C-alpha cells in the first residue's frame, strides 16, 4: 500500500471520528449553541 494512502486514510479516519464524536457527544456544536 503506498505511503500516500496510509496518510490519507489516517487523516480521513480522524476526520470521520471527529464528526461522529461531535454528532454523538457534542450536542449542538453549530451557531445554535448561542441560543438559550
Amino acid at each position: 500500500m503506498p505511503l500516500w494512502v496510509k496518510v490519507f486514510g489516517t487523516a480521513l479516519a480522524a476526520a470521520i471520528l471527529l464528526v461522529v464524536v461531535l454528532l454523538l457527544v457534542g450536542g449542538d456544536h453549530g451557531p445554535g449553541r448561542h441560543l438559550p
Partner: protein
Amino acid sequence: MTPGLRKFALTAHITASVGWLGAVIAYLVLAAGPVVDPDIRVARAAYPAMELLVRSVIVPLSLAALATGVAQSLITAWGLARHYWVLAKLLLNALATALLLLYAPSIERTAAIAAKAALSDAEVSMLRSPAHVIHAGGALVLLLAATALAVYKPRGRVAGLSGGRRGPRRDPSRAR
C-alpha cells in the same frame, strides 16, 4: 462506450465537481461577511443568500458530482475500487455530501432567524458565529483534496480487488 459518450460523461462530472467547488467558495465569502462586519444588515442579507445557495446549487451539484463520479468510474477502465485514488475520491465525495445533508437544516434555521424583525442578543451572537465559516472551510479542504486526486492520480492499485498488479501509469480511459 463510445469516445463521444465517455467525453460527455467526463464533462458532466467535471462541471458538477468544479461547480460545487466554486459554489462553496462563494458560500465561504458570504459566511465570512457577518463574522467580519459588525453591521447586522450584512447578516440579514447573507444568510438568506447562503440558504438559497445551499438548497438550489450546492446540494444538487454535490449529488450530481457523486452520481457522475460513480458513473464515470464504472464506464471507464479505472473502475470503482481498482485504484486507491478513485476510492479515496469516492470516499471524500460521499463524506462531503453526507456532511452537507446533515448541515443543511442548520443554515435554514439561521436564515429564518436572520429574517426576524427583532433579534435578541443571543440571536445576534448566533448570527455572528464563525460556525458557518468553519464548515465551509472544511468543505473547501475536502473538495480541493478531491480535485488534486483527480488531477495527480497518485499510483497504487487496490490489492485483493484487482489482484494487486501494478498497472501502467497512463490513463486507462485513453486505452485504445
